[in-house]
Structures are given as C-alpha cells and as structure tokens.
C-alpha cells in the first residue's frame, strides 16, 4: 500500500537547494556577453521630461547604450503604467535605463546623465485631491472614466469635517446597498460611528524583481522573479506582442511576491527590449531601494464606518465609506473591503460607498488579502467596543454575526462553497482558552494592561477550470508538470499530491517539473488570490484521474481483461486478486507504442489552447495524463482564519507586547500540515506587522517617501511575535472540490492584524485609536492625553 500523501508532512523538493544556496533566483543567472542595466528614477513625484543629455554617459568606459521611454510600450490617454516614462507619476518611477559591461559602470553612467525635468503638481493624500482646488495626480484630473479624465472634488463643508477628524460623506464613485439601513439603524440598540485610517504599506518581498533576458534565434529567454509561471510567460509575450511560444521562461524560485509579482511585471519589459536593441543578454538587478518604488504597495484607506447592533449583539446595519489611496495606476481593494465587511458581520442592511483616488505615490497592487485584510483590521476594534457597550462577550458577538454556509453577501448576494467560520472561532477560542482569559481582559498590573482580541478574516481561496498535465515516463516515475510559480508556499509540490494518491504512488515516485516553460507547462491559474491549492489540486486530480484511466486501459490492452479488472499500487498495475502485472515503466513504454491519447498525441478537446503546446512538447514521452478541471461548482471559494491574541500594553511607553497568538483556519482538507502552519502563522505575522509596525512616510512638501528601507518601513521581526504561536485547521473538506482543499495564503493577514487591533482596543479599555499602525508614539500620545499631530492624513511619521 502506497503511503498516504495528502495531509502528511513531506519536505518540499526544493528545500535543500534553497537552504544550501544552490537554488538559482533570477539574479543568479549569467549568460555569455551579458551586460547590466540600471534604471534612472524620477526624483519628483510628478514631472515631465523636457530633455535628456546622455552624451557624457555614453562616452564613459563600458557603457553600451541607453533605453528611453519611446522605445517601450506606452499607454496613452488613460492611467496605465509603462516600464519607462517621460511623464513620471511618482518619485522613483523609472525614466530610462543604461546598459554597461558592469553594473558599476552602468550606475556611474546614470549619474552622468542630465535629465531636464519640469515639475508638475502632485498629490500624496487622496483627501488633498478631493479638496476644492486640490491638486490632481494627473494633469487631466483626478478621476478617469468613460475614456476621459475628470475632476471630482468635495465641498468646503466636507473639509471642515476632515479638519475636525471626521470623515465626511462626500460624493462617492461606487455605491451599493442592501436592505434598508436607515430603518435598521433606527432599530439598532447601539450605533457606533468612527473615522478610521489604514495605512498604505509596501510589499517588501525578500527577492526584488530582478530579471535577465536574452534573445536567441528569435526566442526570448527570460529569467525572472514571478509568483506565477505559465501565466507570466503569456504576460511577457503580451507586453512584447510576440508569440508566447517564442518566450522561454525560467522562474524556478521566487523570493516572495505577496501579490506584487502575480504574472509578469511592468519592468520585465526593460531587459527584454534592451536586449533586443543591443543584441546582448541584459541583467536588470533590482535593488531594495528600487523595489520599494516599483515593487507595489497595499492601498491605504481613509474611511468612515457606522455600525448598528441589536441588544443581543446582532449587527443589523453597516454604513461604510472608503476613500482609497490608489497610487497612479489604481487598485480595487476598497470594493473587496465592502464585500468582506458584509461577509464577516452579515448585517443584512448595508450601504457601501467608496472612491479610489489617484495619487502620486508608488503604484498600488493586491497585497495578501487585498481589501479584506484592511477592513477587518479596521472594523474589529469597533466590534470590541460594541460588545463592551452591550455587555456581551466578543466571541458571542462574533458567533452571532459570523456567516452560515448559506450566506449571501455583497451587492450581488454572492454565495460560497463552504463556510466554517463559526467552527474556526470556536476551535480557536478553545485552544486560546478565550473563556478563561476573560478575566485577564483589561487587567492592569503596574504599568501594564492586558488585552485580548479576535480577528475573523475570510478571503477568496480558489478558482476552477485549469488544466493538469503529467507524464509517466519509461523510468516509471510520474512527472507532474506545474505551470504555477514557486513562491515559497509549497503549492507547486503540494497540489501534485492528489495525482500521486490517485495513482497510488509513493512521493519518491513523483517528480515535479516546474519553473522552465521549455519543459512544458499546462494552463494554470495565476499564483495569487490563494487560488492554487484549490485550483490545481483539482486540475491535478483531473489529470491524475485521466492518467489512472489510461494506465488501467494500457494494462488491460496489454495483459487482457478490462480496465476494471486492474488496480495499481506503488508503481505497479496489477490484476485484482493476483496474476499479471506491469510496472509503470512498462506501462509508459507501452503507452508510447500505443500512441494516440496514451502518449499525448491525441489531446482532449476541452483543454485550454495554451496547454496544447506544452502537451505537444511532451507527446510521445510516456503515458500522458492531461485534463481540464471540469468538476464545476457554484459559489465563491473562501477560506477563513480566526485569530486570537493576548497582548500586554505598557501604558508608560505605548509598547505592545504580544504574549499569545492562536490561529485556526477553515481551509478545507489539509494537504500539508507543516506548510499550512507556516502559511497561517506567516500570514498572521504579516498582518501583525500591518497593524502594529509597518508604515510608509512621505514628506508632504516634496512628495518623497522615507520608509524606503526595511529598517525604516519596519515589517515585523521574530521578536515582535510570541515564539509559540499556535496554528490549527478544522480540516473540514470543501464539498464542491474533489480533494476538499481550499487555499490559505490571504486570510491569515487580516486575522493576525485584526486580533491585534482588537486586543489593543481592549487593553486601552475599549478605546479605538482607529488608525494603523499602532506604534508606541500614537498609543502613548493617546494614553497621555496629548493631541495627536494628525487627523485623517494617510502618510505620517
């Protein structure tokens, strides 16, 4: 009997390479004649390049050429990002690139270039852009719609509110309602209203988005850092407007992305185009400093929230208004935030209004739990306050409001495949000993006060309809071809497990093929939105089933009888009840002999067009399992994390010490417990950093950010969290997916962050600071009764 693979701890295949440093990341690659490119970044948040004088630079030793904005794809007439630009929209946006024999020479050449910039009006804070006569991020306006720029401004009266620290209900761009909020609020026993600011924060993956590229025989060889792989190949081809089969993508490892490297990224175009121009391989090593600018950030929110509660703790109405700091190219977090608010607190009566404002700050993009993480981090202290004022237990309030499996949420009353939020809350409460810790809540000893908090965080965790592709080769092993990226979540390995189990193989009989498009990648989801565990456990399940059927058929055709007479285990297919058998090696050879569908010369009609070239490449190499995920299903796939935190707040310093943290997830069947724990706790730590430490700071006069370094941006470190954080999973399979597994990447962020904002509010006696991050300065100023030096500003420090 082959070993059990799903649900066991198996060290990932790339572990040794990673910890011994043998793993090659994008910047580790070299090619003959390779040169280095460096970027010249805009020193101004909004400007126009009037002229460039590179004469001196081009005459410097080793300098090969310069690449300007007019040589790369430009997006005209609408907000859109080009890899190089003559109208930078944020400080740090790349203007041009220089290639030289060495990186030092390229850097020196950049310094020798004179760029004549004409500064243009800029805006950092969305509220400034909404101010009557306030600056716009674009020369054409601060809004884009219907093919043109326009202006949206609030009134002077709105800004009188803002000066007083209250968000006004200015004109919104997006609005949806359900139920009747006015009626509901009038029935509420408690109505709370707060203005809340959530900061913007950079993704800061450990590996910056370096890329090396060269052209050979008309094909682009691209060595990149990306979350996805197969989809990245197509993204690069799209940007360059070339045949995707002319892109050979190598992306074996990715040192983190958190949503900032989903498929391709804008600046991959630079080495591609530059290499084509100069006929040599070009390495663009992105530094930490550059990554901070071009590496994306989570949008910040300035929002107004009104929540109504009945005496029993039922949240019966939510009125939510979000102004989003969207950077120059936009983001859609705020829309998701509205949906998640409805999903977590199920008010039945809700109004969501929002407006995304362009700003001249580095570009925004999805960051782990985009929109969802922000909103639960912002709302959880309000729930704490409500429970306190209603004299109820917060867990009870949460349980009362957490959705049941039949939930419908958002403007279109969306449904979900499975929901076990309440069970997650209950299990978490049990592990954390929520009941026993009630007495610690608010306890003051010396200068320390204790707070406990809950964060309940859902997020999308799956998608459907992708393809699986695998080959049993004549060496008897199953080669699972993955088109996913390998960004450290192990999903590239773990989603192959269903195929191994279907074929009754031991894990050492499975080889994973990934990271190099020349080895064949099936149509895959992007490695984002926590989709892959769900999407590709299904796709590989489907392809595994296809391979299994073919193995049985090959056995029956070779050894006689019908396929149903056969079974398989440990790399052998055998007649049930004893008798003839074949090894998988023999099956593979036989499949090649048989040809047709068995070795991939005939492909199913329903597989995606972009799987076909990969399957064709592999045809004839063994027995091919190839199939589309046709399992179907209805409703969104969401996973949940319930986080519980106990903190000690030092009332004399404002320092918050996290003493305990527990997270329990509802993410369906657990594929890989150790990896799941890493995801749940890692995401929670990221959320804790979001709530407590990480920030972005801009000088308002110059539009220049300061938290450009890890030590100034302050993502959390190991000493910021308790060493014995606990994670657990419900392990209740999702009924609509054959393996039962849902994704987990995103929801822990909101859970970790919200447990913290909630616990801090508790430690402060039910006082919501209503701003993140909750750094000691802000907490202490509040405790000492100082006036905070800000009202609703987005970027402070």
């Amino acid at each position, binding site marked *: 009997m082959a070993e059990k693979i799903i649900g066991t701890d198996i060290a990932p295949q790339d572990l040794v390479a990673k910890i011994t440093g043998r793993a090659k990341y994008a910047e580790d690659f070299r090619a003959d004649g390779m040169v280095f490119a460096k970027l*010249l970044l805009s020193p101004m948040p909004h400007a126009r390049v009037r002229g460039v004088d590179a004469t001196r630079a081009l005459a410097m030793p080793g300098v090969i050429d310069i690449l300007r904005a007019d040589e790369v794809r430009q997006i005209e007439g609408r907000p859109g990002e080009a890899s190089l630009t003559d109208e930078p929209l944020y400080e740090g946006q790349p203007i041009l690139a220089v290639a030289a024999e060495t990186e030092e020479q390229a*850097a020196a050449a950049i310094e020798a270039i004179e760029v004549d910039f004409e500064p243009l009006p800029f805006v950092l804070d969305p509220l400034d852009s909404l101010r009557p006569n306030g600056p716009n991020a674009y020369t054409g306006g601060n809004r884009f719609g219907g093919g043109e720029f326009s202006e949206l401004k609030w009134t002077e009266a709105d800004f009188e509110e803002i000066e007083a620290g209250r968000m006004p209900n200015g004109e919104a761009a997006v609005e949806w309602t359900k139920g009747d909020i006015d009626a509901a609020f009038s029935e509420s026993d408690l109505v709370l209203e707060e203005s809340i600011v959530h900061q913007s924060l950079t993704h800061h993956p450990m590996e910056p988005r370096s890329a090396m590229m060269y052209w050979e025989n008309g094909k682009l060889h691209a060595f990149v850092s990306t979350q996805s792989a197969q989809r990245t190949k197509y993204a690069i081809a799209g940007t360059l407007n070339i045949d995707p089969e002319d892109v050979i993508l190598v992306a074996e490892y990715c040192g983190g992305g958190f949503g900032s490297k989903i498929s391709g990224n804008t600046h991959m175009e630079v080495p591609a185009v530059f290499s084509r121009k100069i006929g040599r391989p070009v390495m663009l090593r992105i530094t930490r400093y550059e990554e901070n600018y071009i590496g994306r950030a989570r949008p910040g929110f300035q929002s107004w929230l009104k929540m109504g509660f009945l005496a029993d703790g039922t949240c019966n109405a939510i009125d939510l208004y979000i102004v989003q700091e969207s950077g120059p190219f936009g983001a859609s977090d705020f829309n998701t935030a509205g949906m998640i608010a409805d999903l977590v607190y199920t008010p039945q009566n809700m109004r969501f209004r929002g407006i995304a404002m362009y700003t001249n700050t580095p570009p925004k993009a999805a960051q782990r739990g985009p929109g969802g993480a922000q909103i639960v981090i912002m709302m959880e202290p309000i729930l704490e306050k409500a429970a306190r004022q209603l004299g109820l237990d917060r867990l009870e309030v949460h349980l009362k409001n957490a959705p049941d499996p039949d939930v419908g949420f958002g403007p279109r009353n969306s449904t979900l495949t499975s929901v076990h939020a309440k069970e997650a809350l209950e299990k978490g409460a049990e592990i954390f000993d929520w009941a026993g810790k009630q007495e610690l809540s608010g306890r003051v000893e010396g200068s320390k006060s204790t707070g406990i908090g809950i964060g309940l965080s859902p997020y999308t965790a799956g998608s459907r309809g992708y393809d699986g592709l695998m080959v049993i080769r004549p060496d008897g092993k199953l080669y699972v071809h993955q088109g996913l990226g390998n960004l450290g979540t192990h999903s590239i390995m773990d989603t192959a497990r269903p195929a191994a189990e279907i074929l009754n193989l031991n894990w050492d009989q499975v080889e994973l093929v990934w990271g190099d498009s020349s080895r064949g990648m099936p149509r895959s989801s992007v490695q984002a939105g926590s989709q892959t565990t769900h999407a590709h456990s299904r796709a590989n399940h489907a392809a595994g089933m296809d391979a299994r059927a073919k193995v049985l058929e090959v056995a029956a055709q070779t050894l006689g009888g019908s396929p149903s007479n056969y079974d398989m285990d440990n790399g052998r297919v055998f007649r049930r009840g004893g008798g003839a058998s074949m090894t998988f090696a023999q099956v593979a050879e036989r499949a090649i002999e048989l040809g047709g569908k068995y070795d991939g010369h005939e492909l199913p009609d329903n597989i995606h067009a972009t799987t076909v070239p990969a399957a064709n490449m592999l045809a004839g190499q063994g027995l091919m399992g190839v199939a589309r995920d046709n399992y179907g299903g209805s409703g969104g796939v969401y996973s949940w994390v319930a986080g519980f935190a106990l903190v000690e707040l030092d009332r004399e310093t404002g320092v918050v010490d996290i003493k305990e943290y527990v997270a329990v997830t509802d993410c369906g069947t657990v594929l890989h417990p150790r990896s799941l724990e890493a995801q749940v706790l890692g995401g929670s730590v990221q959320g804790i950093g979001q709530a407590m430490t990480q920030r972005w700071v801009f*000088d308002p006069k110059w539009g220049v950010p300061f938290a450009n370094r890890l030590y100034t941006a302050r993502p959390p470190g190991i000493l910021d969290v308790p060493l014995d954080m606990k994670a657990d999973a419900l392990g209740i399979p999702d009924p609509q997916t054959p393996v039962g597994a849902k994704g987990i990447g995103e929801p822990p962020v909101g859970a970790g962050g919200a447990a913290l904002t909630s616990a801090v509010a508790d430690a402060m006696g039910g006082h919501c600071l209503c701003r993140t991050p909750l750094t*000691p300065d802000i907490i202490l100023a509040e405790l000492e009764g*100082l006036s905070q030096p800000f009202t609703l500003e987005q970027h*402070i420090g």
Partner: protein
Amino acid sequence: MAIIRDMIPAFELFQPTTVEDALALMAEHGEAGWVLAGGLDSYDWFKDRIKRPEAVIDLGGIDELNGISDGQDGLEIGAMTTLTEIVRHERVRSEYMLLADAAEHVATPQIRNQGTLGGNISQDTRCWYYRSGWACYRAGGNTCYAAAPQAMNREHAITGTSRCVAVNPSDTAPALVALDAKMTVRGRRSSSVYDAEDFFIGPATDITRMTILEAGDLLTQIDIPSEWANAHFYYEKVRDRGSWDFQLVSVAAAFKTSGNTIEDARIAVNGIAPFPVRLDAVERLVIGAAVDEALAVEAGEIAIDGSRPLKHNEYKQPMTSNLVRRAVRSVA
C-alpha cells in the same frame, strides 16, 4: 546629475594592522579617507553613494583595537570589540551589566556580531531627511527639512537642537555616559582622553558631526572606570519593533544606593537630542533622596524641562518622563 542609490562606488581599501599605520593612512587621505569599523553605518552611506570616500581604512585587522581587558581601574575595551563580545563578556555582565544590556539592544544578533562598540557610538544619525542625501544643515546645506512645520519628525529631537533636529541613534552611548566611560582618541601626534559625555557633540558646536572625532582622529579605546562597577543599573529602550530598530527613547542609569536612598547617580537619555543627554538636574534631585513614587514622578518631570517637541514627536516628552521615572523607581 541624476541620482542613483544602492550601488557602492569603487574605493581603495586599506587594511592596516597597527593603529600607527591607520593614523598614517588617515592623515595621508584626509577628507577623502573613511574609517571603517563594523561597516553597518558606512556601507549604508556608500551604498547610497552619498558618502563617497576614495580610500577606506578598515580597522578590522588591528588587533590592538580588539578585545576587553582588565585595566588599572575598571575595564579597557578596544574600540573594535564587537557588541556580541561585550554582551557575552563575563566581567561586563557581572559588574557593568548596564553596558551589556545596552549592547544587547542593538539591532539584531547578526548586526551585533559585526558591529563594534566604537562604531556604535560613532555612528551617524538616522534622520531620514539626512540619510536620503538631502542637502540639509548636517550635510553642509542650509535647511533643516525635518523641522519644517509639515515635516515627518516623529523620530526627531525634542531638546539639544540647534538648526538640526536629528537624534543620536546609539544604544550604547547613554550607557557609556552613565558609566562615566573615558574615550581615548588618538591623532597622529597626540592622544586625548574624553569623558563619554564630552565625546558626543551637538549641532550647536558642529552641525556636521555627532562626536568629537575629527578627520584624522581615531577612537581607540573605551575605559569603563570601576567607580560605577556593580552599581544599581537601569536600561530601557523603546522602539517600534523588537529588533533591528533604533530607539525612540532610551534611558541608561547607574545608581549607588544605600537601602532605598540614592547616594550617587548618573542618568542619560538618548533619542531625544542630537547627543545622549545627561540629566544633571534629575541627578541633583535624586542624589541623597529616598526613592518613592513622588520622587520618581518629579524626576520624570524634571527630565523634560526645557524640551520642545516638533509637530510629530510630542510623545517623546511623556515617554522620556516615564522612562526616567521607571529608572528612579527601580531603585526602590
């Protein structure tokens, strides 16, 4: 000229093995030379291409600058002794825990393995305007961007400012002031010993330097006199996160006590001024006094006399008060 960061320009590296050779190299290269200790401040500057020395004089190979030994009076610590060594040193821990405690609050284990005591106290400020290469007063320009009314200055100074409002970032500096350490500074022709307190200078004296060290000067040794050995110590550092972070405010205090009466005291605070601030007034208040909460509170209040916050750092006043209060309270 376009600006580019994160790429160290070439320099000539010198690795002398004696102090004399180092001093000779420093004299030879003058302003174009740069003295490298652990490199944690230096490489940041180089990487950003803001400081661009032609010659880097690496002190790492000078044995005489390394190590902790028993002196005639107390401990003698070579300037290149790593912070880890200080943290682990038995006698430092048993007699001068204040220093070990302060050193252990520096950044991360990796940085403490590489960072030196001399480097830690000689490091430049982390004012982000200055570190961004802006031509501020400290960089030889004529503006303090951090003091402007809208400026981002939560981490800046509330006292001791003069045009420049940057703070000293060192964790060990206040401990050395509290321990009344003596700094041996060698020039080519002379050698001087400074009290720790005088080693750090403010912008009123020279806006471009944090310490008494001028070009050509080398901090070689830090002596910890036995005077304060085994005193009652208190060290606390408040920072935004638990590691790899500079202080918002830190306090280092040494008390000689008899029962709960303070017989002598030295208290220093860092993070509130361009230099570690010795709290003479607080010391005068507490010396000879029996410690009770009222004394601690008063000490905290006196500690911030004359301070004036910027827009975003008013919290540093109560934070300083509270830390000083806790230091005094710790005696009881």
